[in-house]
């Protein structure tokens, strides 16, 4: 009987998480479809917009989940995320680049993509270990600054002319410096084109059918290819989610949570906390490397600019909005960040300028406020819309402060996930009808670790 109730509850809560994520995504889609319709975009453009939103959400979700393992569960404040992504992506790009790339490209080792991806993850993990091994003893805020410095060192290194082209054991290779290095051909293209690197040579059978079907709806070929890749990315999000949930629920994960709450207690119980922290840090870095490869590595060109320290802060903001320590929250945070803070303002400003029909925005701020003297706000509004890129970051800052001040635990941060293997409040495992209020209350909150309570 307990069993049934447990199953019901588990099913219900599992569904709630899925419903939450789906609900947020549907709301985003509805919003951007409305934007598209109001802007008078065609069906193809709207599909393309939704694809971009989904792609960015999935990409952010991957990195947010990896960061959640380090910060949300082990309390390790890593603000060198962009640096670890860069290590993974650059390693992958160098390993897979063709040894004979032509005059403009950077030569690589020409290894298969899978080897490149595994190599990138391994490199990111090793660099993570290199940073964590000595730095893990430091205070939380020092660790943060060390990782930030590390991220900058990586960016300086890939940007420098010194490593633009180097020879390793007789092999010519390099990072391409500020011009960047070419990424591998996206494998999903093989599904559609007989020669993935050159679409002009013809489509495969499946490609022809699918392109024709979507073409009839007004969706262009590149959008179809991007859509397919986005689906692959979503698959990886599910994989990351399952993997992290497994890690967190395991005895290993319980030690992590104990460390996060009170390291001294974990130590007193005989846990080798440093080792746990280093393993977690390296695992998180490997996942950041993989996430980076799936995201930035899928671009045709990999440049140092893609790994600006700001990227790290975006990932943090997404995680904070969702609530650190909650994997579902992380995914929702990624969706909210991309939809409301990253892409939303851009579309909103396009919409406003479309309908307001301003002639032309003033070029400078003084010109924009000059109209205020005669109570003419139109130049200022037009200027604001043309400078929406900057205002968007101001908005991000405001949201960040509001979240920290009003709800530091994030949207889903209220969830408790006790760091114990057996429910301390459980009285009788075999269907005792008397049920303590605490039991009930905990069961409702325990969504991350629901199966702990009902064995």
């Amino acid at each position, binding site marked *: 009987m307990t069993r049934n109730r447990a199953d019901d509850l588990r099913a219900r809560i599992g569904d709630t998480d899925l419903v939450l994520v789906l609900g947020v995504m549907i709301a985003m889609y509805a919003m951007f479809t409305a934007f598209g319709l109001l802007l008078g975009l065609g069906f193809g453009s709207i599909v393309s917009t939704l694809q971009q939103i989904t792609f960015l959400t999935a990409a952010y979700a991957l990195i947010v989940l990896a960061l959640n393992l380090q910060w949300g569960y082990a309390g390790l*404040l890593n603000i060198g995320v962009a640096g670890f992504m860069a290590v993974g992506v650059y390693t992958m790009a160098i390993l897979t680049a063709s040894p004979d790339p032509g005059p403009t490209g950077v030569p690589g080792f020409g290894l298969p993509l899978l080897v490149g991806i595994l190599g990138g993850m391994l490199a990111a993990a090793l660099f993570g270990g290199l940073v964590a091994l*000595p*730095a893990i*003893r*430091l*205070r*939380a*805020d*020092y660790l*943060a*600054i*060390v990782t*930030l*410095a*590390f991220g*900058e*060192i990586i960016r*300086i*290194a890939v*940007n*420098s*002319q*010194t490593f633009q082209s180097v020879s390793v054991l007789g092999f010519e290779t390099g990072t391409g410096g500020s011009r960047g290095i070419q990424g591998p051909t996206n494998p999903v293209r093989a599904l559609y084109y007989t020669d993935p690197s050159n679409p002009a040579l013809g489509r495969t059978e499946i490609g022809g059918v699918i392109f024709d079907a979507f073409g009839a709806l007004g969706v262009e070929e590149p959008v179809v290819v991007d859509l397919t890749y986005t689906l692959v990315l979503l698959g990886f999000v599910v994989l990351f989610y399952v993997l992290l949930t497994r890690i967190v629920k395991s005895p290993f994960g319980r030690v992590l949570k104990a460390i996060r709450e009170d390291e001294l207690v974990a130590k007193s119980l005989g846990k080798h906390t440093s080792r746990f922290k280093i393993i977690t840090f390296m695992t998180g870095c490997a996942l950041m490397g993989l996430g980076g490869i799936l995201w930035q590595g899928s671009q045709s060109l990999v440049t140092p600019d893609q790994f600006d320290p700001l990227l790290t*802060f975006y990932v*943090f903001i997404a995680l*904070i909005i969702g609530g650190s320590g909650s994997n579902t929250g992380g995914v929702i945070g990624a969706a909210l960040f991309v939809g409301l803070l990253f892409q939303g303002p851009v579309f909103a400003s396009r919409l406003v300028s479309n309908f307001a029909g301003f002639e032309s925005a003033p*070029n*400078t*701020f*003084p*010109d924009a406020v*000059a109209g205020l003297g005669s109570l003419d706000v139109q130049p200022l509004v037009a200027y*604001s819309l043309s*400078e929406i890129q*900057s*205002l*968007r*970051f*101001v908005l*991000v*800052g*405001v*949201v*960040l*402060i509001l979240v*920290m*001040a009003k709800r*530091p635990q994030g949207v889903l941060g209220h969830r408790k996930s006790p760091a114990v293997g057996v429910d301390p409040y459980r009285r009788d495992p075999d269907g005792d009808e008397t049920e303590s209020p605490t039991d009930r209350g905990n069961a409702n909150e325990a969504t991350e670790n629901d199966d702990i309570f009902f064995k």
Partner: protein
Amino acid sequence: MNIATLLAGGRTRLGSHFFELLVGVGLAVLLFDLLRRLVTDALRVFDLLLFVKEGIVLGLVIGLAGIGLALTYSILHFPNFAHGDYITMGAFAGWVVSYVIAGLGSFDLRDLFLIGVRGDAGGVVVGTSVVQTPVAIVTGLLVAIAFTILATILIDRVIYRPMRDEGVITLLITSVGVALILRYSIAFVWGQETTTLTANSRPQFTAPGIGVQVSTHELTLVACTLVLIAGIHYMIQQTKLGTAMRAMADNPDLAAITGIPTERVVLATWIIAGGATGAAGYLVGLETGILAFNTGWTLLLLIFAAVILGGVGSIYGAIFGGLVIGIVSNVALVWIPSDFTTAAAFLVMIVVLLVKPKGLFEGVTTA
């Protein structure tokens, strides 16, 4: 059994001093190589002196900017990531005033307000420099100080004060939000281009004996920094307020119990820190001659490196750390290409943290 214990003991001893040993050997090798290069004429003495001079100037810039960060870090107990943007804010406020004073009458006020980021009034045509427009420079410096003080107090009242009791990480993330707001508000008004602030020609002096050239702007920077450091030193060591600040840095709860009006001390801290930061921003613009919306942000990590190097909580440590960072990142040019000088500075910070996790001025909390 005895041997086993001995071995284990030896390993622990070696382990605890392993990094220090490694760093010591590394330093010795570098010093030896430097001497070898000087003796064999692979490196001219003049070049080395030039590196050191550039290093000292950069070090003082970082040190001056670090005073404010060290103060707020030790008394409010969180790393303020918005500090870099306080620097930028002070620089823009001060330089707008300098431009208006220097160029009023000959340029359009709107162009002067944009200080050359956009518009026609660039530093080269307005001709701002210590020698040509001293009044504009001094007024600009004072305005930079005053404006930054007011802005920091306002930000503290609205944002940090309600969160005074939150943990270090919460405040750290909040300060990232403040940083984004400040930086991109500046970008909104002035745009994201870099401007040349000062006139091209600067009188140079040749230092007697060593032949290294020093510009008037570098001299101004050094003089202002020394005056500010002396003033802050006096204030912290000799006044009642300074004693209260040191008490709060040491133990905020104990300070509150003994009747120190902690909120008033915090206010005083922001005033001093804001003033030093605004001055640093203005002087950085004067010395480097360029300014952009992210000038302070790019400096921030170096400033953190300096503050941590010196041991958080010590303003002398911050200045010393700044000098170390400045000199290291310039003298490093002897061995490594110029792209990597900043990386070398960060590496020094990481190495120091590993050897002495509490910084070089460990245990000295002079506020």
